[in-house]
């Protein structure tokens, strides 16, 4: 498990972490250097955020921290103090699923699914910045998220579809 246990514990005793998760206030006790990934998965039971590498390479653990896309395996818990975190569990849309999630389903953007939550969050961050991205922009925005199953073709397609749908129905929530 990364980082080494000593590093986590040497940096001081447990703290009470107060943060907004998907719009709800949450409190959890953890070590300040614990990974945000573990706080979400183990402390808060939000297992939709995945671990693929633990070293910032795969993007499976991506979440939005104060609106910014981060790899939660690299974020120490203390950095999320009083911050707002968005994870896959917080995404909603008119029909239940968020338009991005719907587009991933329809376009075939999910196969084994382990990369999907991180991909969806990376795409969400992109569409908030750039509601009408071209293929190169989509590919660039997803370059920090690895997918071993799809060859990316249908993920890129899903993001483009979602962008089109959101453009006709208002900004992404």
């Amino acid at each position, binding site marked *: *498990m*990364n980082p*080494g*246990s*000593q590093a*986590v*514990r040497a940096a001081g005793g447990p703290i009470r972490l107060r943060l907004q998760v998907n719009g709800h206030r949450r409190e959890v006790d953890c070590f300040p250097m614990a990974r945000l990934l573990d706080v979400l*998965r183990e402390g808060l039971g939000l*297992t*939709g*955020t*995945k*671990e*693929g*590498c*633990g*070293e910032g*390479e*795969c993007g*499976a653990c991506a979440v939005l921290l104060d609106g910014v896309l981060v790899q939660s395996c690299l974020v120490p818990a203390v950095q999320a103090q009083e911050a707002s975190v968005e*994870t*896959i*569990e917080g*995404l909603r849309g008119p029909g239940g*699923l968020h338009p991005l*999630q*719907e587009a*991933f*389903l*329809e376009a*075939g953007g*999910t*196969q*084994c*699914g*382990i*990369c*999907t*939550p991180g991909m*969806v969050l990376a795409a969400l961050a992109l569409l908030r910045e750039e509601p009408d991205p071209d293929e190169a922009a*989509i*590919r*660039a925005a*997803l*370059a*920090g*998220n*690895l*997918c*071993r*199953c*799809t*060859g*990316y*073709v*249908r*993920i*890129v397609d899903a993001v483009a579809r979602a962008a089109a749908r959101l453009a006709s129905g208002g900004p992404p929530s």
Partner: protein
Amino acid sequence: MGPTCVGQGVPRKEGEAKVAGRAAYVDDLRLPGMLHGVTVRSTAARGRILAVGFGDGIPWDELVVVTARDVPGVNHVTLLDTDQPCLADGVVNHWDEPVVLLAHADRHLLEEARRRVHVEVEPLPAVLTIEDSLECRTVVWGKDNVFADYRVERGDPDGARRAAVHVVVGVYRTGAQEQLYIETQGVIAVPEPEGGISVHGSMQCPYYVQKALGPILGLPPERVRVVQTVTGGGFGGKEEYPSMIAAHAALLARKARRPVKLVYDREEDIQATTKRHPSRTWHRTAVDAEGRLLAMEVDFVIDGGAYKTLSPVVLSRGLIHSTGPYRCENVRLRGRAVATSAPPHGAFRGFGAPQSIFAVERHLDRVARDLGLDPVELRRRNFLHRGDRTAVGQEVREEPDMEGLMEKALEESDYRARRVACRRARERPGETVRRGVGLAAFYHGSGFTGSGEVHLASVASLECGPEGRVEVQASSTEIGQGTSTILAQITAGALGVDYRLVEVAPPDTDRVPDSGPTVASRTCMVVGRLVERCAGQALEVLRAEGLLPGGGHDDAQFVEACRVWCARHGPLRTHARYEPPPGIRWDPERFQGDAYGAYSWAVYVARVAVDTLTWETRVEDLVAVQEVGRAVHPLLAAGQVEGGVAQGVGFALYEKVVWRGGRVANARMTDYVMPTSEDAPPIRVHFVERPYAHGPSGAKGLGELPMDGPAPAIIAAVEDATGAALDSVPLLPEDLMVAMEGVIESR
């Protein structure tokens, strides 16, 4: 929807749970009282274990510690052989071989503990390459380091060679490749009453795990329950290794009398689990003046690593595919799987075929070059046709129409015009980017090799409940490729009911029959056919009882028929066992006969751009044309091709396992680089549909095929762009630089 549902883009069965983040992978599960487990591994390629030391500062009495001495049954993981220990005992035969297992509730303490266990090894000489292994100066396995040695001979290759106009010789190599599923390997083992065990985990083949665990734990199969959890990719990497990790978790759980979760981190997964076999292939080919193949001789060698595992089976598939989709009456093939001191190599999408197809396709390009013949033309003159025989003497019963597939691929890629344009551009002075195009023609056998399917004798079953709900029961796993969706589609199609009435049971050895492993592109074609037959029987039964009209029905009639049947007799169950298509025969002794029930056929074209300053290669376009019978779900099928192609791009240009003294030196995603969304090319997929008479709704196998073509097509394109003679993958920028500029003197 009903009968027309095959061929349509119905929603993935488990898709919604996945996009919502609700799908529960093994690491997402937590059981009451659960401990975590870790593995202490060997720190030498080969040697004698002198001592195992437990360092200070750890409350060892709080930990569960398991060594080889704690194995209640046999200490080996049964596969083809029994040479691989579950836990090393006395000797180690590769780096990162499991020696000691630890469990504790606190993951952080556990990690510290792992670091304090010291396995002292007295080194013995190791064997690090195929050449070393064949030389046999150090014997690391058996008498001669050879796991398997197969020979095939047809016609008179010596006579044909002597009469030939040209004889072309070449040697080609492929490297190890990591499967790199994004979910690492992991299981949870739970002790059950009276010494039984259940295992939940990420895997392709639940019955393999059950078969391996019984002897290790000294339990009959019915006391070992194996349940597949949502699996984040497999690609062959979760074919045999889950038996190992499941055994480890089970040993810990038995000793702890508590559930134990064992999940690898990325580094451990890359270092300790299987990879694609490295290969070396020698070709000697005799051709006449028109480029017709007179004789093909092949010597194909794969590096199996330290234990036999599945290597002989990988070898046989590789060898059978080693002459490609070409006609040649005189062949001599030899294939060997040899032992080295690397961690065992194993299944990876394509299973030996990507290695041997890379070699034969590169070699044919070399033959074309030597003859001054266009590579397209050379292939056209030699393709297999209906009635021809393959290298192992199998008569081709379908009409492959490789010419048609090739023409389609050339058209779609604008190959001819591009080839000319690339050549012109290269002649322009001052161009630093050079472009080239290349192609590969290939086929891939669906299902187990030879009599494999007959031996497996797979069974699938179907259950119709009172509300007309249909459950498909098979051990075939959903690992992202769409098993749950296509088996439901095939069943719904055969029953003539709505897809939504059909669900596929989660693979659980207590609940589903053994429909064989989820490997070898067999799920759709072989298991799909079984469930189709189950559905047919269910209809017959309902019709015979007078509950359904003979000439077709709607969903309401079907539901009503099920209701009445269930009220009279209980749930309606049918099952089907594998039967080979008529006339299929395989002679394992002579390596002759019908190696596969059916083949899928393909031609891929790649276009690349090579930057001559950095020697980086980008694939700018990849056209993939294939005939796979009928595509049951065109969207999922295209997704399979695209995913396979991206892995093939990685195999060709990005993914290099760096070995240092037998250990993987780049066991992180930072150093072992797979294609990102910016590296993967646009992939243009075309299916030519030609229904196969013995596949469900006409389908054949698909999953592995797309892994075979990209590497030879891409390297041919790089050769076209640069003029360098390229005969191995992966081809990283530094490799291309060496090929172009010669060895750079170190400063």
